[in-house]
């Protein structure tokens, strides 16, 4: 193993193996769940703008659809490998199962660098991808969504191609569509609000009234901003926000003991979540180094920026007052840091749960598209609350019952649910 290069699918499999041991899964179940159920690899020829035909390689991996149609992204990436896609498909299976969404997990992609492709060529790729896969895709088979280097426009091209082949309108074929073209309201808020819904439940569990809590947030992008908004509506106080300063190539923490004013801060923020340093200082914020957010004497830490922010080096700086860490970003904490933290009395809401608002809203989009009836934003967010809260409590209960960490409990539930569905169908 030590000489084997890093491989994300190996990592996903070993994560599964560890949990399968705990669950005591039998061999057939392991055999089935360790591998994708279906893999398609195919070629897409397109004619380039300047004449010659180029051939591209496409993939779709369905990890498991025992609980429902596959659901997962499609990315355009050079040197995409089947192993990366397998890992991502497996991750989707667990995520949907944890949220108790009736969907399976899948993922796909095209090996290409969109920087070398015109929009017209990208459109051809999208349409070619759908043509090659049309029998294996559909609202009740496998539902794609945007991922790296693909966006709403690509989804619409794919939808159009699929509908042309099927000869009917099937907006539930794909998610990530713009509002008005089969998209769902509440999508922007989903991740941040979802995080605060579970945070609220965690506070209840710990018996702390939200209005008496303070928080420090890393990241002022979509997740961070909506999380802060809802948290403050709940009565909590955010005293510090850290973000990346594009101009200076470093990050800063902006602190106000009396609590940040969300609206004025958002008013001096660019669309990438970068706060204007000078204007913030003028508004009376203390401008501190980027790492300072972690050292604030608050009840709640919300890392909502990028991965690997809490490491073995800085985990000890987390002040004793901190009671909850809610992972808004993917993998913001290294496993070594997590081991250190486990020794302290800090309640961790793991990323797979805390940032599941996005995938849940994606599911809502598909539901709305399939019935061709679209909800108001309140309704979307209300239903999100129900789903998030339910998922939180099932994880919490299991963690208590089995003495697991919240993260392990989340995986445990997810795998158990999928294995159960396979059993119910008589597959294993």
């Amino acid at each position, binding site marked *: 193993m030590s000489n084997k290069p890093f491989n994300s699918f190996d990592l996903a499999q070993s994560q599964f193996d560890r949990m399968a041991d705990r669950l005591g899964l039998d061999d057939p179940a392991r055999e089935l769940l360790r591998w994708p159920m279906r893999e398609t690899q195919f070629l897409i020829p397109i004619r380039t703008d300047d004449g010659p035909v180029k051939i591209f390689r496409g993939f779709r991996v369905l990890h498991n659809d025992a609980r429902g149609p596959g659901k997962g992204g499609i990315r355009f990436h050079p*040197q995409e490998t089947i192993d990366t896609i397998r890992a991502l498909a497996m991750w989707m299976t667990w995520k949907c199962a944890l949220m108790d969404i009736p969907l399976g997990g899948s993922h796909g992609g095209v090996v290409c660098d969109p920087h070398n492709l015109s929009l017209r060529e990208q459109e051809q790729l999208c349409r070619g991808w759908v043509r090659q896969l049309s029998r294996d895709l559909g609202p009740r088979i496998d539902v794609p969504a945007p991922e*790296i280097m693909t966006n709403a426009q690509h989804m619409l091209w794919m939808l159009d191609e699929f509908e042309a082949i099927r000869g009917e309108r099937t907006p539930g074929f794909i998610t990530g569509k713009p509002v008005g073209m089969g998209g769902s309201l509440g999508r922007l808020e989903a991740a941040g609000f979802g995080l605060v819904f579970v945070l609220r439940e965690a506070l209840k569990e710990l018996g702390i009234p939200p209005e008496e809590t303070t928080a420090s947030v890393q990241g002022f992008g979509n997740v961070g901003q909506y999380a802060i908004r809802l948290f403050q509506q709940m009565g909590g106080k955010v005293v510090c926000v850290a973000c990346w300063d594009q101009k200076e190539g470093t990050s800063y923490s902006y602190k106000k003991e009396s609590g940040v004013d969300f609206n004025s801060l958002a008013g001096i923020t660019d*669309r990438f979540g970068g706060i204007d340093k000078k204007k913030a200082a003028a508004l009376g914020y203390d401008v501190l180094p980027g790492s300072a957010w972690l050292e604030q004497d608050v009840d709640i830490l919300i890392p909502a920026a990028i991965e690997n922010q809490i490491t073995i080096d800085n985990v000890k700086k987390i002040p004793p007052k901190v009671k909850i860490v809610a992972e808004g970003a993917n993998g913001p904490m290294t496993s070594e840091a997590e081991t250190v933290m486990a020794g302290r009395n800090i309640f961790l809401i793991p990323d797979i749960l805390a940032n599941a608002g996005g995938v849940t809203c994606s599911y809502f989009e598909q539901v709305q598209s399939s019935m061709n009836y679209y909800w108001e934003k309140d309704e979307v967010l209300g239903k999100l609350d129900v789903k998030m809260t339910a998922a939180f409590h099932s994880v919490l209960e299991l963690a208590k019952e089995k003495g697991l960490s919240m993260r392990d409990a989340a995986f445990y539930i997810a795998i158990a649910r999928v294995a159960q569905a396979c059993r119910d169908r008589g597959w294993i």
Partner: protein
Amino acid sequence: MPDQPRNIDNLIWFLSERAKELSCLYKIEGLLNKPDTNLDDICKGIIEAIPPGWQYPDICVAKISLEGHTCQSPNFKETPWVQFADIKVQDQQIGRLSVYYTAEMPHMADGPFLKEETKLLGTIVERLGHYILYARMKQVFQEYQTAKGDLTGHKAEEWRMALNFLRETNKNLYLDISRRMLNFLSWRGIHEAEQLLQKSVGGPRAKDERAATDENRPNQKGLVTLTDQLIDETFKLAAQHLTNEQILANIQKWIQEDRLSFLVQITNRNLPLAKVVDAIRRHHHIAAEGIELPPASKRGVQVSLIQRFLSARQEFVNTAVEFVDIDDFYEVLDHIVFSPESHGRLGGKSTGLFLAKHIIRKCSPLSDHLRGIKVPKTWYITSDGLLSFLSYNNLNEVVEQKYKDINQVRLEYPHIVQTFKNSSFPTEVIQGLSMVLDDFKDQPLIVRSSSLLEDRMGSSFSGKYKSLFLANQGSKRERLEALTDAIAEVYASTFGPDPIDYRAERGLLDFAEEMGIMIQEVVGTRVGDYFMPAFAGVAFSRNEFRWSPRIKREDGLLRLVPGLGTRAVDRTGDDYPVLIAPGQVGLRVNVSVDEIARYAPKKVDVINMSMNTFETVEIKDLLKKFGRDIPALEKMVSIHDGQRISKPVGKNIDFEKDDLIVTFEGLIADRRFMPQLRAVLHLLEEKLKTPVDIEFASDGRDFYLLQCRPQSYLEGSRPTPIPKDIPRDKILFFSNRFVSNGQVPDITHIIYVHPQKYDELHDEPSLLAVGRAVGKLNKLLPRRRFVLMGPGRWGSRGDIKLGVKVTYSDISNTAVLIEIARKKGNFRPDLSFGTHFFQDLVEAEIRYLPLYPGEKGTVFNEKFFETSPNILPEVLPEFAFLADTLRVIDVPKSADGLVLKVLMNGERDEAAGILASPSLPAEVPLVSQEQAEKRSGNFWAWRLQMAEHVASQLDPARFGVKGFYVFGSTKNANAGPQSDIDILIHFQGTKKQRQELLGWLEGWSLALDEINYQKTGHRSGGLLDIHIVTDEDIARKESYASKIGAVTDAARPLALKKSETPS
């Protein structure tokens, strides 16, 4: 006159005299241009027009005597107070115009007459002479036409008839034509003609090349012996050997050519500009009748005009002569502000644009796309205008400025600017400029330098001299003042430190600098309070920054911005233009929604019409307020809906709600703009036989060409010659695919990520650690003195195996970014071409190079990279565990004091990294003062001085300061005009002290910013960038604290004030 102090009354008197004279001249021009008029009426008219034009109209009378006839003022009497001028036709005196005062008046320049009156008199007789000549010719032809009618069927007599008329009316021409006929016959090899010719010139001699010699005099000399008998014989021979039609056609042609013979005087270089202007004007009117000079003379005149006004470079002349006709100068000369004795040129910028315009005009029948190209209305001041400005104001000693010490130049420059702005212009220039303003009305203007040095191939003086925008609003007086002010400032920029430094480096100091001026209307429309083009940009016919292997050099490069083009020309550092390869418009630098939004232009340069200023405004605010008023906006913006960025449908834009991003998608898809741009670039490159770059702007309707020159390269972006004889062991790498231009000398460190070892890293944290370590090294190693080499795609998102995961800020200080595509089995990975932060690389001028080890022609000295000592454990002990994968090589230590030089030649598609002797000592502090000044324009030296000064004034006890350090560009001697001063303060005081310290430093920061603004024109709102670190930070070696006592590029401690307050 300039040195005689004149009071205002005198000035007004002077000006009103000039006005009278001009009005007199206009009246007479009017008479001469009236159709169906006769000589009598004209003479009468002149007699009437003269007195009001003279200083004492009441006692002024005039008389014209012309071929025996006389015409005079009603109250005419002869007196001693007279001035006169002869009326001549073809150098023969045929009359005289005399002006008398009937009473004695005070003595002036010429008796009682003013100098200007004498000149006016000369002009009047000259015009009258031309008129009479023209009238005679017309008459001859009319008679001839009538005769022709009578002689139908008698062709034989036609040419004789014409000849007879000539003999009667114009003896000179008659002789001339006879002689030309004789030449013509002898050139055709008719023996008898040759004999006649010898007889005529009194013996055998070289044939007279009449067409190329100087006017008429030498001909007359040769014609002395052309007797009537000889002429008879000549035409007898002609009748024998030529058909009647041939003879007639020749005579007609020669008569017509003779009308343009005056043009030949232009080939005389010493001819004053006023005469040239006059000759070109006359030609313009005659040329309108379709009459042309014979080809050889025409070419001679063309070449003279090109050399005189444009450039004497032979390659230029050869090209220009193909596209620029004599009459094309009419338009230029009509738009020149000059002193009559000027001999200057238009300067590089004007010349480039002028030629480009005529190339496009000549070739426009070939392509629809070329037809719509426009050039904004332009006025010129010739290059010697600067010299006459200097001597008029007794400022000649300023020319010596360039030989002074560069520090001195820098210090004195603001003073020179002020002196120039307070100087005055010669009266004729002021009058000219006043006319310029009348022509432009209140259209905003740009005053641009057009230096003779700019014209020299290879010396790109781009941006070294000033270009100033004028709102051109207010009263005429205010506008004139603003215009002269701007011209003075552009003149002053000739003596600015940057151009002088730049010239010194290139050995061009002794080249006499003359500066032409271009006054051009700004293309654009009024948008709210602002005036701006809809969009503008620069385009290069060769693409030096290819972001995809599918883009070829000849696909070109376009940098497009909304508003004034200044933001596309300059690299602003905080904003980005939209980059497009015109030959491959589909392939964009930025593809994902996030990239497109991040690298979209955020600001616009505009002219504020109410404040009379040039301004930069946020595009977001501009669109909200005035989006509706910007023409063709729907072609410039796309709508960001959070999930995608798409073109608006038609003009359906909600300026309040829509999140608008400048993408130029509509423009790129436009059927007019892109094809136009491509056609222009292609044509100019083909005709000028060199890659070109152009500046352009559009008011939303038309494409305006603003500048054209051979493709310029940013400093360090020229194709660099690669020596062929480099010993193999000195080559670290050699590449021959996808190379752009550039050269980076003096690289002292290499960060090398070992491709196989990186591939073998098995856990994600280690892979991520490589990126983090690179980020730390980026801050530790000397800026722009190291290169980064690594496998695959730097900054890859998604699968980390594809390349080291870094962001731009982790690599921002590297000089070159190298991606290594090592074959795995039979699979060769694609490289990113730096696309993840491509625009950042372009704006920061970081070079990019892909390497393909194992490919034919590629050299890759693996041994050097893998066996040179690795200093990583020493500089970053916490990353020592990566030492197998991440190697940091101190080049001089590993190569006996040699450094790495990277030479890149895009033209040959070759790049080499070689070991060579350093051109600078390896350690920056050892750089001698002079060298450092040359390199960096000395922006760092005064920064360092000031930092030392600030430190020496800082009371450590009062503020709780333990140490004061300078680092970054100021310490490393590579500060630019916009750099701030990085200060690190070791602080150990109270909160109150900290606040006081920051306040104290803020004062300094603002003051220094002001000084920097005075020096460079850049303002940042505070020049000091203060970083405060504490004992704890230093103990933990965190962030900036790691600079203190660092192994490489450590912060430099400065001495503090001796404490006054006892601590």
